[in-house]
């Protein structure tokens, strides 16, 4: 049965007939969703081994840093914040994909999101702790990190403490938001495991599913209870996601430093997080689709839609970037003008314009042209966005930290004599960053050994809903544009409006 859904991107699917009982496509969903749990492909252990080795290398690099001090990571007094702070922002930022795909698209009732939700939420669940862990290499005295979680030592006026509050709350919400839709799947998975597996692992998994999934039976009262809870958390998680990056930005913005002291920063950070979050969802969905042969359920149309959501955020981010530098440069204040000059045409021009091209122009261009508006194009654009936005975080973090502050003449006029500092990359932060990047697929591979990769319950529910409507289109099928629009009540969503234009053209591929 695992061969059934291998490598097919077939338009149109079987089982569009009666809609009662268990159509063939639904059975496929169950099999496909459980495949990572029950099958261990040949590549699994070597991949996990390599990724784990990379992670271990990062831990070694951190150990070296603990032994020798932050100096080995290239830090200095006029470059006191750099890679780890950018990593902290970037890795917590990519967790926003889960909130977007699961919460926003759920609230806008965009049913096409269903096959993506589990992967998106799982990505959020693994990237958020990784991002939080960057607080450890960030600290100069990590052995005293307990002070941050020790209430008597709290200083409630510190942005960093509120970062901790916001991120940990968001982590709890993400975990809950991952867990609740999982409940029906755990019950289904328990039964499926009973059918096919008898080994020790299967028994242990069944026991775990039993504990976590409860006695889910899909009865209407249970559905109402669960749907109500999921809807509530979906509403709650959006302001929480907004708060996380807002408060993260306060750590920078609540200072008098040009380039940090920006009122635009909270919005700027949130939009960047949404942008990269969707990009990472694209990458992980593409990887999961390829690795576990989910082509039947996740088709190029999903990528294009995600790509459209992504570039919508990307366009907003370009706009915010423009306003930030325009206003600061225009004001002509000594510190601000010097910073803008350094970023745009000075010593930081290469990373800045790399960001501008790779995360600004190119993704928009890819989504603008029909020839490139493909699954491959979206994946390429997403990869570019992830890399370039990490670079952009460096451009945000490093230049203001290196700006000389003792240069303004006391009262009379004068020229600037301060020297810009600099941050020099060393292997330590690069190793730690690469390790954190490797930890994402590593944790996803491990996570999907235990939970269904597709939201079986939700997809089946969608299926029935769609089947019940007069304009039924199979969830797994690439329907005609008109039918798609009809199944997209979420077209009121910002991107949805543009979907109408796009979908007509999509029939060509």
């Amino acid at each position, binding site marked *: 049965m695992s061969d059934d859904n291998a490598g097919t991107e077939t338009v149109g699917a079987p089982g569009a007939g009666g809609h009662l009982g268990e159509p063939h496509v639904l059975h496929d969903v169950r099999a496909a969703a459980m495949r990572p749990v029950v099958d261990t492909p040949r590549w699994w252990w070597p991949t996990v081994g390599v990724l784990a080795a990379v992670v271990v290398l990062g831990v070694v690099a951190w150990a070296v840093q603990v032994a*020798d*001090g*932050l*100096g*080995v990571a290239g*830090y*200095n*007094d*006029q470059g*006191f*914040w750099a890679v780890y702070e950018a990593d902290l922002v970037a890795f917590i930022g990519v967790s926003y994909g889960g909130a977007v795909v699961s919460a926003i698209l759920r609230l806008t009732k965009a049913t096409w999101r269903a096959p993506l939700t589990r992967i998106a939420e799982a990505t959020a669940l693994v990237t958020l702790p990784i991002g939080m862990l960057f607080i450890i290499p*960030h*600290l*100069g*005295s*990590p052995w*005293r*990190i307990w*002070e*941050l979680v020790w209430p*008597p*030592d*709290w*200083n409630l*006026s*510190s*942005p*960093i*403490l509120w970062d*901790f509050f916001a991120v940990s709350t968001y982590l709890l919400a993400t975990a809950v938001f991952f867990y609740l839709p999982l409940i029906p799947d755990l019950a289904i998975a328990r039964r499926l495991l009973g059918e096919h597996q008898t080994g020790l692992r299967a028994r242990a998994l069944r026991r775990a599913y039993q504990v976590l999934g409860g006695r889910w039976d899909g009865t209407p009262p249970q559905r109402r209870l669960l749907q109500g809870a999921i809807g509530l958390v979906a509403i709650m998680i959006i302001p929480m996601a907004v708060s996380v990056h807002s408060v993260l930005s306060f*750590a*920078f913005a*609540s*200072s*008098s*430093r040009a380039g*940090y002291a920006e009122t635009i920063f909270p919005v700027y950070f949130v939009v960047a997080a949404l942008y990269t979050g969707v990009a990472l969802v694209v990458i992980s969905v593409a990887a999961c689709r390829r690795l576990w042969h989910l082509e039947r359920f996740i088709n190029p149309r999903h990528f294009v839609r995600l790509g459209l959501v992504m570039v919508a955020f990307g366009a907003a981010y370009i706009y915010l970037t423009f306003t930030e530098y325009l206003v600061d440069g225009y004001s002509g204040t000594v510190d601000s003008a010097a910073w803008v000059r350094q970023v745009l045409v000075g010593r930081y021009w290469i990373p800045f314009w790399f960001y501008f091209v790779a995360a600004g122009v190119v993704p928009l261009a890819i989504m603008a042209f029909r020839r490139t508006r493909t699954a491959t194009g979206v994946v390429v654009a997403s990869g570019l966005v992830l890399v370039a936005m990490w670079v952009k975080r460096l451009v945000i973090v490093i230049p203001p*930290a290196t700006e*000389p*502050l*003792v*240069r*303004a*003449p*006391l*009262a*009379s*006029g*004068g*020229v600037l*004599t*301060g020297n810009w500092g600099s941050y020099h990359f060393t292997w330590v932060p690069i190793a730690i960053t690469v390790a954190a990047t490797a930890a994402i697929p590593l944790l996803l591979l491990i996570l999907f050994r235990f939970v269904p990769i597709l939201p079986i319950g939700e997809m089946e529910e969608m299926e029935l809903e769609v089947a019940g409507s007069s304009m039924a289109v199979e969830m797994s099928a690439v329907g005609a544009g008109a039918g798609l629009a009809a199944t997209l009540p979420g077209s009121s969503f910002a991107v949805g409006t543009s979907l109408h234009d796009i979908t007509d053209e999509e029939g060509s591929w």
Partner: protein
Amino acid sequence: MSKERRVGGPIQQEPQDGGADREGAPPGQVPVTMGRRNLLRGAALGALGLAAAGAVGGLVDTSPSSATTTTAGAAKPAHQWAMVIDLRYCNGCKLCTAACQNAHFLHQDQTWIDVFTMQNAAGESYAMPRPCMMCEDPPCVPVCPVSANFRTAEGLTLVDQSRCVGTRICMNSCPYQARYFNFSAPRPAPRQPFPQEPAWPVPQVEGTVGKCVFCAAMLPSGKLPECMANCPMGVLYLGDLETDVAVNGLGNTVKLSTFLADNDAVKFKESYGTHPRVFYIQGHGQDLEADAASA
């Protein structure tokens, strides 16, 4: 609450030692405390070649109400430390930086008091020492997540390196670039005359932030901070807003308020709302002749 506990730690005891001198005893006990004090004062006078004979102290004001409000000692600190930097005399020799680094066993790049080369409107360069500004509203204090920064009753902003976790957000918030992190192991220091505490953070602690402390541990014993004591030009004055006195390493003593007013003293980056307690007297070498002529 932890902040209060910190402030009330070892630091708080210093003003009590030094402060008792300044405040003297309550009026009723004046005769007891006077003799030895005047003895020592007289010693200084004798050094001036004055044959001061006996002295009889008198109370300026004995009204109970004012006495109780102003000599309450415990409530009001005896000093409010400040610094005056007379740029007219600074030649940029950086001996202050060297003395500070020697005393606190700092690395070469940890310039707690740094001397910057500035240019005036005429294109002439001048030197500008920059210690910690000991702001009255220090931006570094509220941002620390673990309350490692605190401000003493005598107006010194200090770092508790036994608490600092090294987020470096204080380095971000300081508009004067006056904070220096220990990115590597600190220079080893021999046994110090003071315990390692915020008032005398020697040796420094790796992974924590450090900065100029006005040599807070030395102040109660009447010793000038290292930078001031070692400035050959007498540029740096230790000031006390409470007693309105400022002293430099050459022994020049001035009435602080008059000195500041007469010389149009300014504070650095006043618009940042930090209310620094470091005062700059502007000008540089070119002004010296005119200044000397008028003096």
